[in-house]
């Protein structure tokens, strides 16, 4: 589904990614771990189409398309979803406006009919229930005044509604207390399916206790230094990143 070959990128002339190679097949959950500043979030942002980075080499093929040539909205239409590390506050726009506009934009590009108001409300209520969120969230401005945990829940709520083919989850576990972590983790698990792939970026193992990845990769200095199964995450939790960074 996703093939990243020798991806190199820099920001303000500073190299961040130094040749990433990664293949993700349909239905797989991959976790990318690594110390702060290793390039984890940059990788997720580049895949979603944020243009603050300059890709200097390499290519990314997503479902047969050259991903790097697509605009962020075209990537969303093609089934890519990024759960932001820092979800953006948009004062003046109600959450429900964004949710409905997003759902229908993506449905339109998938060639399925738009949801009518009643159908949409039924769907969104069902997903709110999964995320244990109050309906009042719909009528608040997008992420404005939300706590850290509420913002992350709102991201996963959007993911549930948009049903991506490839979900990129950037530090979705940061800023969550134990209960919120469980709700978010279970929300992600519900989305696992043979057709859907997930790339989880995280610093800690704790989310991976709930969402068991098929593969774990360790990113340091913009390169994947080590790959393994979920036991690698446990090893990192015990031993830290120091040995890997030096390698």
């Amino acid at each position, binding site marked *: 589904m996703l093939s990243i070959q020798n991806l190199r990128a820099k920001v303000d002339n500073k190299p961040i990614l130094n040749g990433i190679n990664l293949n993700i097949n349909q239905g797989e959950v991959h976790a990318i771990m690594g110390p702060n500043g290793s390039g984890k979030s940059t990788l997720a942002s580049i895949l*979603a*189409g*944020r*243009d*603050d980075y300059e890709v200097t080499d390499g290519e990314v093929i997503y479902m047969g398309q050259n991903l790097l040539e697509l*605009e*962020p*909205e075209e*990537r*969303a*239409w093609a089934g890519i*979803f*990024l759960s*932001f590390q820092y*979800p*953006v506050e*948009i*004062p*003046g*726009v*109600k959450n*429900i*406006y*964004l949710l*409905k*506009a*997003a759902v229908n*934009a*993506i449905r339109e*590009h998938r060639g399925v009919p738009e949801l*009518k*108001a009643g159908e*949409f*409300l039924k769907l969104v209520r069902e997903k709110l229930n999964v995320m244990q969120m109050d309906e009042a969230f*719909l009528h608040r*401005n997008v992420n404005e005044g939300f706590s850290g945990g509420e913002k992350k829940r709102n991201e996963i709520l*959007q993911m549930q509604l*948009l049903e991506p083919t490839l979900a990129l989850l950037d530090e979705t576990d940061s800023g969550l207390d134990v209960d919120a972590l469980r709700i978010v983790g279970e929300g992600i698990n519900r989305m696992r399916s043979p057709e859907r792939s997930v790339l989880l970026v995280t610093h800690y193992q704790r989310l991976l206790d709930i969402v068991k990845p098929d593969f774990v990769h360790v990113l340091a200095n913009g390169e994947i230094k080590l790959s393994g199964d979920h036991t690698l995450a446990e090893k990192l939790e015990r031993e830290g990143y120091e040995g890997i960074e030096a390698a």
Partner: protein
Amino acid sequence: MSGFSAWLNDIEGISAQQALKAGLPTKRVESWKYVPTRSLNRTGWRPATPQATERFALTGGRFANIPEVSGLEVTDEKLTPEEKKRLTGMSEAHGFGLTQAALDHSQLILTVQETASVRINLDHLANEASSAGFATLVLRLEAGAQLTFIEQFEATVVEKSNLSSLRCVITLSRDASVKHVRFQKANATAHIFSNIEVSCGENASYRLQTIEFGAKLARNDINIALAGREASASVNGLAITKGSQYHDTHLTIDHVVGDTKSEMTFRNMVDGKGEATINGRVLIRQDSQRSGTEQSIANLLLSESARVNPKPELEIYADDVTASHGCTVGSLNKMELFYLKSRGLSEADARAFLQYAFAEKIIGEIQHQDIRELVETQLLGELQHGDLIEELKESVDV
């Protein structure tokens, strides 16, 4: 002889002579330095003629259908010396003020009686091509009176330059309150001048919401004096400027005495070759202790050739004061755009969302639902892809 000069030349009187001598303000006058006065000078103006209407309206410089409402009195008496002084103050500010004083067609004095609560709607009808109308409205509020004053501008298409100017003198006695809403969506050839002079007595409150969409050139001069203790004023403004429009608001709030509060929030959104000026001045005098003011000015530029001239001015001479102010100029936020696009919104839809959000911060504050909805509809009609938001509002707002 062109512009207003020919007209002024036909009028006898000291102010006409003074106005002729002074001419229109030029770019050398600080408060007029951005105003494109060329079209004012080029047009051969003649007096506008009133049109028939069934509503309370300003047409051709005259008031039609003066409202007959309980608690509201039409006063025949003369202006008080204080009102006269405030009108003269306006006139002497610049040549345009003198011109306005000389050409004034009519003067209406309305009094809201003690503790009465009244709503009046004034419609500004478009003046015909090459014609200009000037008028003065005096509003007096007796103690404890409440007035909701809503001004709306008609958008009739007029092929050539036209002009309408209203001076408004509002005096609030103790405990009186005014909610003043202006929704300016005049035609694209209009020159709209609005001069609002407010004086608030003890514990009186004046709240203005002013929304500018229309006109080729719109200039607001708003001066508010907080002259009694516990008086307060709040001004909320939005100008949507595009094409080759010019919108200008000069606003002064004067804390004449202590224990007074003011708030000023203004947003400009400028597209195309539009230009907007906002001058927001707050004066807290030396003896006006325990006063507070909050000022926030935000400017959004949507095109390379859009221009904005923001000037926040805080002059504080008292020491026991709370004051906050902020002024920003920028384009649409890149991260916000990326966030919306990453959710599948097209570039145009994402831009519409953010422009709507910027304007909504002011529009959402309008308490009168009928007016708020009119303004929102106008905004969404003007935004490219505003129809998406209109559909969303209809489908999910219950």
